[in-house]
């Protein structure tokens, strides 16, 4: 009897220890399960004590619903997260155009209705400078919280999640625009021969410069190259005002107007403003040439695209109606969804083309390069969660955001187009660039060749030697809106490229004056690493 009792205790202790160190399997709303180690989920989740029981947090996100971009993953993993923490998650969806004003109103009036926000990175300057959000560095070191890997992010994306030396949001979305093209069509020998006959040269696949892309797009525009009985287009873009149409211009124009250099100074690696006096550069010769080019390129696509938002333009490409589009990572994964896409297995992807000519402001003229001036970009929101400084439960919000940033959930999101979460971290990419496996992508519905093209293009974009600077100073949203509305005036033929950009510059000057030129200059220099 004396020996039995200690043995029982030992067995019980072993059982408890085994339980404590057991992996934890969580199932999402789609019924798919992921197993985490204790280290991955953090001790709060692994202890099973549910220390956040009785706490409800509220986060805002762009409207999209349970299967929508950025909002979808929150719904998908809500039950699982609530189960391990005991907290309740209240998701508030706000339409894209209303999200920023709603968030800022909450913060500026001190209402504190929301604990966290899934923000676009262009809001960051306003939020950090106003002390409206809290840094997360201390939480990141704390083993109680889910573990995610900040070192896996390229510097270009890392910049968007940080301000100075401080982190403000765990990894979520990595936005950047790449070129998508129909590999099957561009490699068609018959089409290639006809193109050569008409233009006198053989095109590269993918095109190396925007001028080359224009020729190809013009060649394919207006006739039935996919044999569906209807004329098709060269390119499709989403150009609707108020629906992120201006981002196309931001990505396309970089090679025409950013002079590469060793560091950020008055003339090199700058795009938005003169970093010495905040004079807008948006109506400089390089920009005007870029917009004139985009207006020309626009004519090789459907007329209706000037009123199309993302979904409509993507759908046009997915239905196989255009040879090119350039947009975010959503397109690459949506192509794999055969209920929407006719082009699975026919996809080509690359970093955006460059330009042989770039405007040099120091010389006041366009200079020619031997190789195309190519720029990667982080165009878009790179939508990620941040914690409101007014939240009474910042650690609960951080737990949620870190949970979504764990490698396993992040990868799960990236492999499904509807989540709106796009690849950017090393563990999203295939070897030799990253640690993800092709089999994993294929198991989640990707065509293997499409997956290779898509992930390589994103790697090239985010890890490019030159990545275009991002605008995220106070009033960032207002600067973007001014750009958006005047570009749309040019897209719809109301004004010339020059006039549209002059109007943007005029509006930007007015915004800068209103916010205070000196303050804006200081923050702008800080945000682009001027002089470093």
């Amino acid at each position, binding site marked *: 009897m004396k020996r039995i009792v200690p043995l029982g205790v030992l067995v019980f202790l072993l059982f408890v220890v085994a339980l404590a160190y057991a992996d934890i399997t969580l199932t999402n709303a789609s019924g798919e399960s992921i197993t985490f180690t204790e280290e991955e989920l953090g001790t709060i989740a692994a202890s099973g004590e549910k220390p956040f029981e009785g706490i409800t947090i509220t986060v805002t996100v762009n409207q999209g619903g349970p299967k929508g971009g950025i909002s979808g993953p929150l719904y998908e993993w809500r039950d699982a997260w609530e189960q391990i923490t005991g907290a309740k998650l209240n998701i508030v969806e706000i339409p894209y155009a209303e999200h920023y*004003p709603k968030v800022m*109103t909450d913060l500026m009036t001190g209402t504190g209705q929301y604990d966290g926000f899934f923000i676009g990175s262009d809001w960051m300057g306003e939020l950090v400078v106003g002390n409206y959000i809290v840094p997360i560095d201390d939480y990141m070191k704390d083993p109680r919280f889910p573990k995610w890997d900040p070192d896996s992010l390229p510097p270009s994306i890392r910049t968007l999640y940080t301000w100075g030396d401080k982190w403000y949001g765990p990894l979520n979305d990595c936005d950047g625009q790449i070129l998508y093209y129909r590999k099957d069509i561009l490699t068609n020998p018959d089409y290639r021969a006809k193109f050569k006959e008409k233009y006198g040269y053989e095109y590269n696949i993918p095109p190396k410069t925007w001028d080359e892309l224009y020729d190809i797009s013009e060649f394919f525009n207006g006739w039935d190259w996919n044999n569906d009985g209807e004329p098709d287009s060269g390119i499709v873009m989403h150009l609707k005002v108020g629906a992120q149409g201006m981002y196309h211009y931001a990505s396309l124009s970089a090679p025409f107007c950013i002079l590469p250099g060793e560091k950020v100074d008055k003339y090199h690696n700058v795009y938005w403003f003169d970093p010495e006096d905040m004079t807008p550069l948006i109506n400089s010769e390089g920009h005007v040439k870029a917009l004139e080019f985009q207006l020309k390129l626009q004519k090789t696509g459907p007329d*209706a695209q000037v*009123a199309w938002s993302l979904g409509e333009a993507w759908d*046009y490409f997915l239905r196989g109606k255009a040879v090119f589009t350039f947009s975010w990572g959503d397109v690459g994964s949506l192509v794999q969804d055969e209920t929407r896409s006719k082009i699975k297995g026919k996809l080509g992807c690359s970093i955006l083309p460059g330009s042989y000519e770039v405007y040099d402001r120091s010389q006041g003229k366009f200079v020619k390069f031997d190789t195309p001036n190519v720029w990667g970009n982080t165009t878009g929101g790179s939508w990620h969660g941040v914690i409101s400084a007014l939240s009474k439960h910042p650690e609960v919000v951080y737990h949620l955001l870190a949970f979504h940033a764990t490698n396993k959930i992040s990868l799960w999101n990236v492999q499904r187009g509807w989540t709106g979460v796009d690849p950017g971290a090393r563990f999203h990419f295939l070897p030799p660039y990253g640690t993800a496996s092709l089999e994993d992508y294929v198991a989640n519905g990707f065509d293997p060749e499409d997956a290779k093209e898509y992930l390589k293009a994103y790697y090239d974009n985010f890890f490019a030697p030159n990545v275009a600077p991002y605008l995220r100073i106070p009033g960032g*949203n207002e600067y973007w809106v001014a750009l958006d509305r*005047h570009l749309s005036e040019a897209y*719809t033929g*109301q004004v010339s490229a020059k006039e549209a950009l002059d109007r943007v510059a005029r509006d930007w000057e007015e915004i800068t004056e209103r916010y205070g030129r000196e303050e804006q200059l200081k923050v702008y220099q800080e945000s682009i690493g001027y002089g470093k």
Partner: protein
Amino acid sequence: MSKGKRIKYFFIVPSIGWVLAFTIFPLLYSASLTLFRVRLGKPARFVGLANFARILSDYKMWNSLRITLVYVAVTVALQVLLGLLIALLFHQEMRGKSIFRALLILPIFCTPVAVGYLGLTVFYEEGGPINSILMSLLGTKIPWLSNPFWAWVAILLLDIWQWTPFCFLVILAGLQSLPEEIYDAAYIDSSSEWEIFRKITFPMVQPVVIIVLLLRLIESFKIFDVVYSLTGGGPGTSTEVYSLFTYRTGLKFFDFGYASVLGYLLLAMVMVVVNIFFRRVREVYE
């Protein structure tokens, strides 16, 4: 003071409170805002009349004002004219009149934002119902939402569709209240319907028409919902009406001082229009 006299104050206090809280206070507060550069969460800065002076050089404001004035002139004129014509039609004896009348007034009950989103579907350029019909009948389609002119036409059509029934209904009520005896006498003197309309019907129904005109003018100046949901002010800024511009200035960019000035300008414009029309109503009645 007797109990009866005191009780009347008791009943009137809530409405006074309401007016003070929701009309007088916002009016005075926004009047003070016009003199400041205001950012929420930061101290307001006194700028004198700078916000008013800004109007003069703000081409965006003038553009939105021009768009609004043209919109008001066209929609109100068409709505009242069509409403009058349909009312005259329904003033005749006809079969199934009550059913048609009920069907005709249904659009009034739609939420304008929903009408805007409905418009997105109806005017969708690639495969939307209108363009599909046009393609099958004429082999052409209209760039409803991608062309500045047609986007404007789309908004006009939706607004006319929704608010013509209101004009029709009120004018019809006015027509039905006209005394029959006058018409009996008129038919003895003339057999021309046009003459009777011109010399009897229209002058008698004119006060009602003016009231309808006035109500629609005031409402039309404030147009926001349909534009917001259908075009967002685009393409470009071709449909950015005054209220949308004011809303963006105040609630999107938080430029409250200037937005208050814009609000007062709209108030002044509407008051001028209302005064002109009230003067006309008075002349008609006198």
